[in-house]
């Protein structure tokens, strides 16, 4: 035990270096910064949006419409038309003057959406004739946030349409609730998971689950890649720095050398996991991707979409076994490399094994997939890691148990292979050169 602890201490000291920690800390800072910026933008988007309205009609209907806008969380900035009325001007000249003034005012007040309600608008609506309103959108960029401008315009026009159609329906139908005429069918959604059910829309449930499980596979992908690269590099570096031969002649159990390397890489992976989760947490907080509470929370509880302590334990075991599988495979891979550079090429098959379930599970419904695809997914141990949270939510305990047993078996087989390599002279003689010249045996 003393010798094993000595080896583990050495591995951690070798692996936890500033070269590893600094990029991770920079990443956290970056995530925090992006999350903070996005959070501020989201807050801006939730605040009342400013629109410039030119009421050229000034009828009861147009004034009522502006009131509707104000009640719909819009900050209405009205532009009076009286100063723009020039005596002797033609209707066309007057319309142009109003449009120019609207644009100039919108730019001056930094308002991105403006609209002109034309004269005669109210009369037209009263006669059940569709009316046209002019809209102006000031575009300053084309990034993700620019879609906000379109949303403001759509929401403002939708508020108008809703109000006016309600008014028309009331008049034509001679009473009743307009909404009942517009949507004669009312949905009563029920979602069923296993034996449980709750009155909630499927869209809300999907949003709720994805909100919790979206970033876990990303984190996992990073951790497994990092841990695997780290252990394979650790083995190859021992060869490259000519320290392996000395270590192999020391009176230590060779399995302990492997265990120590795995423990070192796992420790670093766990530190990095914590760091990335922290960073992603800030990022998602900024994006406002928090878990819904209230009614949705209650529905989630009814559906069993709450991770219980035993659920956490199952997820933890599955994730840990996924990391161990990657570590054991990477140890074998590292044995083939002559130096740390060689690891980059050799580790690629492992990365592909990670990518396959990661992408397939994002895009494919495994329950309806073809048998070949199903076998492929189930044959890769990392699939169970990526499916862990979903399986706990869906109470697929059989699949979880199978995944744990399969991953453990996979890990055991690769540890035995690694043990066999380290216990024999294969650890020295195994080489994949990729075209490089072999050294002469002396």
């Amino acid at each position, binding site marked *: 035990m003393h*010798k094993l602890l000595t080896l583990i201490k*050495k591995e951690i000291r070798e692996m936890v270096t500033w070269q590893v920690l600094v990029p991770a800390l920079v990443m956290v800072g970056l995530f925090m910064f992006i999350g903070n910026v996005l959070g501020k933008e989201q807050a801006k988007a939730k605040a009342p949006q400013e629109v410039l309205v030119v009421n050229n009609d000034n009828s009861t209907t147009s004034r009522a419409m502006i009131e509707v806008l104000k009640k719909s969380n819009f900050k209405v900035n009205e532009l009076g038309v009286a100063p723009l009325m020039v005596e002797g001007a033609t209707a066309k000249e007057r319309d142009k003057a109003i449009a120019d003034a609207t644009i100039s005012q919108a730019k001056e007040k930094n308002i991105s959406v403006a609209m002109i309600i034309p004269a005669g608008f109210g009369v037209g609506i009263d006669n059940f004739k569709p009316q046209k309103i002019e809209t102006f959108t000031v575009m300053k960029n084309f990034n993700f946030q620019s879609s906000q401008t379109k949303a403001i315009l759509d929401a403002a026009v939708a508020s108008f349409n809703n109000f006016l159609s309600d008014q028309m329906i009331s008049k034509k139908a001679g009473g009743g609730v307009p909404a009942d005429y517009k949507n004669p069918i009312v949905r009563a959604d029920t979602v069923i998971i296993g034996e449980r059910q709750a009155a909630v829309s499927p869209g809300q449930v999907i949003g709720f689950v994805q909100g919790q499980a979206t970033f876990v596979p990303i984190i996992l992908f990073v951790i497994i890649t990092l841990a695997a690269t780290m252990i394979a590099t650790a083995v190859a570096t021992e060869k490259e*720095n000519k320290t392996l*031969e*000395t270590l192999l002649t*020391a*009176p230590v159990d060779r399995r302990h050398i492997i265990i120590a390397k795995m423990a070192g890489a796992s420790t670093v992976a766990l530190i990095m996991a914590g760091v990335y989760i922290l960073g992603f947490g800030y990022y998602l907080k900024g994006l406002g991707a928090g878990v819904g509470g209230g009614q949705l929370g209650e529905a989630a509880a009814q559906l069993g979409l709450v991770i219980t302590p035993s659920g956490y334990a199952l997820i933890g075991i599955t994730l840990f076994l996924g990391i161990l599988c990657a570590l054991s495979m990477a140890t074998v891979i590292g044995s083939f490399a002559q130096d740390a550079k060689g690891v980059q090429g050799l580790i690629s098959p492992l990365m592909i094994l990670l990518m396959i379930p990661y992408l397939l599970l994002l895009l494919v419904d495994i329950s309806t997939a073809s048998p070949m695809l199903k076998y492929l997914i189930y044959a890769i141990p990392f699939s169970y890691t990526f499916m862990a949270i979903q399986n706990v939510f869906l109470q697929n305990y059989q699949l979880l148990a199978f995944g744990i047993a399969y991953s453990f078996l996979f890990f055991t087989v690769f540890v035995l292979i690694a043990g066999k390599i380290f216990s024999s002279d294969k650890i020295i003689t195994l080489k994949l050169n990729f075209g490089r010249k072999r050294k002469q*045996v*002396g």
Partner: protein
Amino acid sequence: MPTVLEVKNLSKNYGQLAAAQEVSFSVSENEIFALIGPNGAGKSTTIRMIATILSPSAGTAEVLGYDVTKEANQVRELISYLPEEAGAYKTLTGKQYLEFMANLYSNDKKIITEYINRGAELAGLGERLKDKINTYSKGMTRKLLLARTLMIKPKLAILDEPTSGLDMINAMEIRKIIREFSRQGMAVLLSSHNMLEIEFLSDRVAIIDKGKIHEIGTSVELKAKYNAKNLEEVFVQATRQV
């Protein structure tokens, strides 16, 4: 003197290539035994088999009666090996490296401290032991590695080119240390290209070429047998006859 190492018909094949062929010799307590030969002669392969790194294709090697293949763990308790191109962990300081290695050879704190102190003294690096190994010169690293090899006072020290990369003064110092340790009872198996070093250090010499041992004897015996002025001439004549 009791025999520490007994090698009988040791062979190692890599496919068609016979890196070592039926190599036999023995090394006793207090004795310094040298393998001399050119690059690719089979010196390092033989040494690595005895050091339990490579598995022999045939033959046996025993350290104090323990077989290097079947009882490798017991053999590792008795030997200490310095490879030709050995390195040390660059992220550790010299002292941390000695501590790490000492902890692999004993669980007893008192013995570990004894090893570390001896290692520090042998390395002769003074305050530089507190510095990271990646700041050391090649010579300093080699001295640290030799100190690591000898600090545990093994029954058999296996030294592959022990003075490789060292300047004349450091090389002389290291030869002196090896001699002293041998006098205290340690058996030494070494290999070197440096014939002068071999002549100065070794009690007996084995001439090895193309994986085979051609001659074994003291320097004096071999020079007399081949009527040679030095071991280089002995080597040339001994390998030419075959």
